[in-house]
């Protein structure tokens, strides 16, 4: 199963993190820092897999990452997942973001924090792959946005919704 998904920028700031195995908040930060320390030391021409992560993650945890512009996309998972398939899954995730945000950049990720989570939740649930077709994911996410805006427009109380939902 997938243990965690992280998006970290080139300076080590977390932009998205989701843990599918419980970790206390401080531990989460430690893990993110550890992953960043490992990744930032790697040159570009090497493989995208890391196995020897030390003891912080427990034995047999693998890491797959991809480096897009200013962001590292990192998936941590155990031996029940196929490394190469995880690499493709990162691709699916990024493609979906790309479709949602029309060529995604770090700012989109920062300011659309909750939407990022909605997208991720349509791809991975409970550490398992839910959907691998970005069109299907998009469809679900758009349905949710639609629902969001209609209901919030209907209830006068939540004027502020569009401001944080739309980008």
């Amino acid at each position: 199963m997938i243990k965690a998904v992280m998006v970290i920028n080139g300076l080590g700031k977390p932009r998205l993190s989701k843990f599918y195995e419980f970790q206390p908040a401080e531990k989460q930060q430690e893990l993110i820092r550890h992953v960043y320390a490992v990744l930032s030391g790697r040159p570009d021409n090497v493989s995208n897999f890391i196995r020897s992560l030390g003891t912080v993650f427990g034995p047999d945890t693998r890491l797959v990452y991809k480096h897009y512009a200013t962001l590292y996309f990192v998936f941590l998972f155990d031996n029940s997942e196929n490394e190469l398939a995880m690499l493709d899954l990162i691709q699916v995730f990024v493609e979906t973001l790309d479709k949602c945000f029309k060529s995604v950049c770090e700012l989109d990720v920062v300011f659309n924090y909750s939407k990022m989570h909605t997208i991720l939740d349509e791809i991975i649930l409970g550490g398992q792959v839910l959907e691998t077709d970005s069109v299907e994911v998009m469809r679900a996410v758009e349905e949710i946005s639609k629902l969001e805006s209609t209901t919030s427009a209907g209830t006068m109380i939540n004027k502020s919704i569009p401001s944080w939902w739309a980008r």
Partner: protein
Amino acid sequence: MNPFSSATRLRDMIRAIRACKTAAEERGVVRKECAAIRAAISENDQDYRHRNLAKLMFIHMLGYPTHFGQMECLKLIASPGFPEKRIGYLGLMLLLDERQEVLMLVTNSIKQDLNHTNQYIVGLALCALGNIGSAEMARDLAPEVERLLKFRDPNIRKKAALCSIRIIKKVPDLAENFINPAASLLSEKHHGVLITGVQLCVDLCKVSTEALEHFRKKCTDGLVKLMRDLANSPYAPEYDISGITDPFLQIRLLRLLRALGQDDADASDTMNDILAQVATKTESNKNAGNAILYECVAAIMSVEDNGGLRVLAINILGRFLSNRDNNIRYVALNMLMKALAVDSQAVQRHRTTILECVKDSDPSIRKRAVELVYLLVNETNVKPMTKELIEYLEASDPEFRGDLTAKICSIVEKFSPEKIWYIDQMLKVLSEAGNDVKDEVWHSLIVVITNASNLHGYAVRSLYRAVQEAGEQETLVRVAIWCIGEYGDMLVNSAGRLHIEEPLTVTEFDAVDVVEISFKSHSFDLTTRSICLIALLKLSSRFPSCSQRINDIIIQYKGSFVLELQQRAIEFNSIIERHQNIRSSLVERMPVLDEATHIGRKAGSVPAAVSTSQGVSVNLPNGAPRPSAAPLVDLLDLSSDDVPVRSSSGGDFLQDLLGVDLVPVSSQSGTNQAQKSGTDVLLDLLSIGTPLANSSPSTTQVLPSNVDAKSPVDLLDKLSSPSAPSVQVCTPAGSSPMLDLLNGFPSSPPISVTEGNGPAYPSIVAFESNSLKLTFNFLKQPGNPQTTLIEASFINKSQEVLTDFIFQAAVPKFLQLHLDPASGNMLPANSNGSITQKLKLTNSQHGKKSLVMRIRIAYKVNNKDVVEEGQINNFPRDL
């Protein structure tokens, strides 16, 4: 009311945080925001609740505490609107976890939402349950999830399937409820549902053998057909990744097939064809295709044996190794490492390609490749493989050399066909990367050289040549100088020259030159210089003509600021000047270093004082060879006031034991440290602390229960060893600890003699108490004298049944213990049946030390926990 006045928007907060230039500034902004949010929470502000929570999630991601927002999640989830619920669930998944009790409160809301008419709300609830559901929630909500597996919308079905995985992982008992729904998911047409359904089956197989059997019987054929359809299906754009139909589904299917085929010949047979088809037909020019191939190889390796398929699989991995994509090479090496256990012949065929990977540009691949090569080397290919690796050493990165040299040395050590080859290879490694090797490497080289008496001359001459070439490699210099000190005469007179050697003319003066240059070099550390100093002392005796010159060199260091050098220089100077008569005997050649001891020490198992019979340590750079004093003799010496000299028939074992147990006796009379350090290990391991010896229950429990420990005379009746009389003489009647142990030694007469090919040993009663009796039967495997197989059998002598019986054992570091599972955990009363348990003991000090073991037996009598402990010292010798 202006919605923007009371609190900043999420966007503005993010902007403010991003604008911070320092961490302190950021903390300030976050603190202000958190204060505002807390205030809003305490006012029970409904309007901005979900916005506040959205902010909190962002703050949480940055690593600040956000626990105060947890109740807000629950409130939002309970509210009717979709946006509130959405943020509420998001917050729930991020800020809470299954361990918090707050989560209990949310179960009811989730239950309602699972039955909601809006399918997106159902989806949110499923997502939350699947991500953080606890065991209680799983029990409460399993029926809802089960129902949702048949929901009309596929998006809900697939979420419900993954949610079920969480449920069965949390509560494996629920697995059987999901077997049938999961099986029906396998006939779905929707790809997303199929992927999740297959995954659910995989996880069901993991937690329930019932499920595994069911799927094996009912679903294998269907899955094979599905796989075949997928592999042959025409282009389907929506799930297609780089021209391959739904690789994720194919991978999941292969994974399920693998689970079904493992350990089941029939199922494996059914899937052989399709595995072969996938392995041969899948395109391998894209990552997605390779991912499928990789999974297929993993499946082939796991299902029941089919030689042809495995060769095919390993060949695929071989092809992967020449792929241009680093990732493919990386996974191939990992998989080959596993495949080695299955079919090493087939892997050997790709040796050349694997060797190429040692030169890869990617360090992580190089590292894997070296590990794999290390596993591939055997007696037949060691020479060419080592040659390749050493050649590569010249071109390798400095940071990689440590690993590489360690592996090369270990290969050479393990498989070297002859010592001369070993020495040659090590010299090459040291000349090339002497500064990168670990200490063990050059230590063991010295050990090997001292053991090869016919190669002393060859070794010292080769080393001399090597130092001329590569004098900057410190460990090479150390070995060379050490050998020149020992065998300097053979360097000069070319004694024992082998016919393959080129003649070499070295004068005594040249030899001293080499040592002097190294000694005075500032780039070498204290160890090297100490070795040089000792070598000089030795040469002063070996080359009388250079004695004066050497003395001059040494004198210069009498004022050295390095204390060690200064002290040695003063000592050696006085030896040369004033003690001519004893010098030559002082600096005689070192006795041959014991290889077994060295190996033992390398494993870090035994401190030198206890293990070395010669009492000389190789890696003691700064000391002239000391007269060898066996620690055992030391021990006996120290106690000689009390114990008369005993006949050697007492044996190591007894002496060891005496050594151990004499500590309390002799420490009363103020014994020095030396003895203690000698027995440290045993003391530590057996935890016989000085003050404990008399009162320790472990000591008394060793006694067979029928013996009353008070009277030494009684005990002596039991003693059969020839050393017994001396014990009687020396032991005051009151000091029982020593007797206790001695008593344990020959206590029981042989009960039965084990039949077998190996030497037979009598069984012993290893432990006996009022309620328990433990007997050991021994068996040796022929050809493996270090290993002893022990069959332990436990008999319950009491009137009560013993339940939850657990036997534990601990041994000193020179022993390795392997415990097989016991035959049961219940002992009937009145010796009415027994538990047996097999133990395997490997004695790395075989022939030197006897077995010794500490045991702990735990059980329940009438539901009361009882623990018995003891120590077994009465193993037959020579085990």
